[in-house]
């Protein structure tokens, strides 16, 4: 019981002291979730219907008689870059 108490106390202490944030109030959870996510209109580059499969893009380009535009990055351009 004593060790459990100490461990809970330690966890509480860590929360209180080290990050300055102890909890998210229930009425603020959704607000904070929305604040972090992309805003409407923030990701304008997604107004382009990017495909994520080069081979499928080849098929589409051939059938529609259009050139391919490839956005190639080290790290996926629509992901973590």
């Amino acid at each position, binding site marked *: 019981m004593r060790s459990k108490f100490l461990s809970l106390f330690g966890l509480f202490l860590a929360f209180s002291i080290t990050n300055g944030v102890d909890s998210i109030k229930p009425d603020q959870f959704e607000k904070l979730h929305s604040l972090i996510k992309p805003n409407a209109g923030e990701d304008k580059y997604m107004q382009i219907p990017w495909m994520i499969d080069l081979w499928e893009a080849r098929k589409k*380009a051939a059938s529609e008689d259009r050139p391919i535009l490839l956005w190639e990055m080290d790290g996926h351009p629509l992901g973590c870059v």
Partner: protein
Amino acid sequence: MGRELTFADSKIIEVVNKNFVPVAMDDWFQRRRQDAEGEFFRKVADQGPRKGQGGGTRQGIYAFTADGKLLQFRNSQDPDVMLAFLQSALKAWGNLNAAERKAAKAFVPDLQKIDPRYVPSLSKGTLVVNVHARILEKENDFYCHGTCKFPGGNRASHDHLWIREPEWQAMLPMDPKVGHEIVIPENLIYRITRFHLIDNTRGEPPMWARNDVRKASLKLNVESVMANEVKLKLLGGILLSTESDSKNSKRGYDAIVQGVISYDPIKRTISKFNIVVIGDHWGEGSYTGGARPGRSPLGIAFELADPAKPADRVPPQAIREFSGYFDAVR
């Protein structure tokens, strides 16, 4: 920056949508894969200045025909440069002779074989969760969007968490009772902490090493039970630090975790996966310079993705090594 500068430009969006088949790819995989698609990509890239000498990057923006004739290549973020690039590519497209145009329209067969080492694919039943990080500032007992000098560094980042079906099914009790504590698979805890609680707001950051996870106390409990919906509540805290002395470490994240996961107990499907991680982040990586000085608030939000959208099927950044991603506890 391509998102912020080039492809956020309304004129560029218009030209691309009207004339091109747009595709976005990760060069790290494309330049390595040993299959027809990898060979095709390298054949296109090798017509330009970037030939990937020594296994190096071929990143940039390419315009080419479906049979692989390069029309234009540039690696610029400047919208004016890129607009000129698109116009030049369209001019080259218009100047193709009859034989070249015929070749560009030739039937493309299905890809017969892929190199599984470099084509991460969603296994059946995998839960895909969008993960967004954003720099924040404190304002009136709450938060507001943060500001930084790095172009686009104030925007929400994008990544995806993949949770295999046996892992997420294990978190849905068959006979849920309010207050019941659910064991979160250890591998999932380490996958989330090491690969998804990262500051990727300025590009590709270093992931956390196994030993950087100094604390990961996460508790998942049944909060409410109804006939068609069971709500689980996630509470906890994490401390990630490159050195054991987190007060003096070079890079770290000290944050609380709260979330709600809802599921249908009959269909055993997850309908909500909303998690917020909020706390102070500090430091930067070799490729993510320009962090705000000292410790400052970083928020990370998780929510269910829509795998019907191509962008939501982009693999997690950390999956470059499959086994490392799914076996993050090691």
